C-alpha cells in the first residue's frame, strides 16, 4: 500500500548523525590487516629464480641484472633481482605466493599516487635475513 513520506522516520533518525563519509586526506581510516600495498623485497632471501616474474599476471616484474648500488656481497648465484613496477601492478599478491623463498612481501602502504615514475617501485630491504 502506498504510504506518503514512508522514508521520513528514517531521515529524521539519521538527521542528528555525523556524515558517514570520511574526509580523506584530512581524516584517515587505518587500513585493514592484510591490505595489499607496496612490495618489499628481502634481498638476502632472494635467489633470483624468476618465478615471481613468470607468474605475475600483468608482467609488472622484470628480472634485472644485479644493480651496482646493491651490495655485491649479497649477490645471488643467478645475479638477478626482481624489479616491481607498481604502475603496472594489480596488487594481487601472486608474486608473494609464488616465491619459494618468501623474499617478497606486501606492506600496508597504499598511498602510492606520485608525479615521479621512479617512485613507483618496490622497497628493497637489505638487512632482514
Amino acid at each position, binding site marked *: 500500500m502506498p504510504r506518503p513520506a*514512508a522514508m521520513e522516520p*528514517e531521515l529524521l533518525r539519521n538527521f542528528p548523525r555525523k556524515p558517514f563519509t570520511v574526509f580523506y586526506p584530512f581524516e584517515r581510516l587505518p587500513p585493514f*590487516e*592484510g*591490505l595489499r600495498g607496496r612490495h618489499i623485497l628481502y634481498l638476502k632471501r632472494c635467489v633470483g629464480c624468476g618465478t615471481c616474474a613468470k607468474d605475475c*599476471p600483468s608482467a609488472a616484474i622484470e628480472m634485472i641484472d644485479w644493480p651496482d648500488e646493491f651490495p655485491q656481497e649479497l649477490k645471488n648465484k643467478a645475479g638477478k633481482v626482481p624489479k616491481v613496477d607498481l604502475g603496472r601492478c*594489480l596488487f*594481487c*599478491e601472486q608474486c608473494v*605466493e609464488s616465491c619459494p623463498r618468501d623474499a617478497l612481501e606486501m606492506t600496508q602502504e597504499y598511498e602510492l599516487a606520485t608525479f615521479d615514475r621512479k617512485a613507483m617501485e618496490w622497497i628493497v630491504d637489505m638487512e632482514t635475513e
Partner: protein
Amino acid sequence: MSTVKVPIGPQHPALKEPINFTIEIEGEQVVDAKVRIGYNHRGIEKACELRTYVRDIYLLERVCGICSHSHTTTFTQGVEELLDEDVPRRGLYIRTIVCELERLHSHMLWLGVAGHEIGFDTLLHYTWRDRELVMDFLEMISGNRVNYAMNTIGGVRRDISKDLIPTLKKGMDTFRERCEYYLKLCSEEPTVLERTQGVGVLPTHMARKLGAVGPTVRASAVDMDCRKDDPCAAYDEVPFEVCTWDSCDVFARVAVRILEMIQSCNMIQWMLDHLPKDEIRLKLKRRVPEGEVLSRYEAPRGELIHYIKSNGTDKPERVKVRTPTLANWPSVEYMLKGCYIADVPIIVASIDPCISCTDRVTFVDVEKEKTWVWDSNQLRRYGIEFYKKKRW
C-alpha cells in the same frame, strides 16, 4: 500516429556503458526496440589463451568489476574439474562466503542505481552507505574492496580468522535488518511503487521462452537458480530458498533482489557457524590434462558460464565466457515494447546490465530527419519530469 525511430547509444541510457538501442516510438509509447551489442570488445578470451592458468585467474577477475569473484569461481572450479581434484571443504566454504558477500554488495548497489533511475536519490545514498558494511567485510577477508583475488586453482588464498567470525555474524544481522527495512520501504514508498509496478512486464512464459536468467527470470515467477539446480562450491550443503515473485514487473525484480539479500545473510551466518576445519587449498600441478569443461555458477546477475578447453599444457586452448547480461538482452527488447520513453532507463536498469562505460544517447526523428543527442542524465531527467507532470 506515425512512428519515430529513436536510436539510443552505442552509449547506454541507464548505465554508463556502450550499447545501442533503436527504439521506435509512437508519441510517448515505445512500439519496438532493438538491442545491438559489441561496442566494448576487450579481447579477454584471446588474451586468456596466451597466459597460463594462474595468470588467467587475475585476468578473468577483471571481466567485471562487480562480480569479479563470480568469474574466478567459475573459472577455477572448471579447471579443478579438468584436473579432477576435490577442493578441501573449508576452501569451498570460504569461496561460497565471498560469493554471497559479493551478491549482497551487488544487489545493494543495484537497488541504489534503481533508486537513482527513478529519481529517488535518497534511496541511492542510504543503500550505498549500507553497502559499505559489506565492502569492509570483503576487505577484511581478502585485503581488497573490489578485486578480492580470493580464488585460486585448488581453493582459496586466505583463511577467515576466528576473531573475524563474530564481527561478520553481527554485521550480517545489521545488514539483514536493513534489507528488511528496504523491502518494507519499497512496498510502501509511492515513488517506488508508481515507477516500478506494472512497468517492464515480462510474463512467465516469455521469460522462459527468451531464456532470461538470474533475478530477471525469478521475478517472473520461475524458480531457476543455478545454485540449486546445479550446485557448485558449498551450495549443496547450505540451506537456502530460491526467491521468486510473481508480479513479473520491475517491482518484482526489486523484491527478488532484496529477498535474495536476506537469504544471503542467512547463508553467510550458517556457513560461518559450520565452517569445516580442514585445509583451505590444495597445491595443484600447473599442467592441466587435455579435456574440456563447461562450468556454471549463479552470479548476482544470473547464470554465468565458462567453457574451458585444455590441451595438456599450462595454458588453456580456449576460454569462452557467457555473462548473464547477454542472456537477458532478448527480455529487455520484449519488456521495452509498449512502455513509455520515460520508463526506458529503469527497464534497462532492471536487468542490472553490465557492459562498460560511456555517456551519450542519440535520438533521431526519422520523419523529420532530425537528430538530437541526449546524454543519459537528460534521458533520466526526462523520465523524472514526465512522471512529475503526470502526477500533478
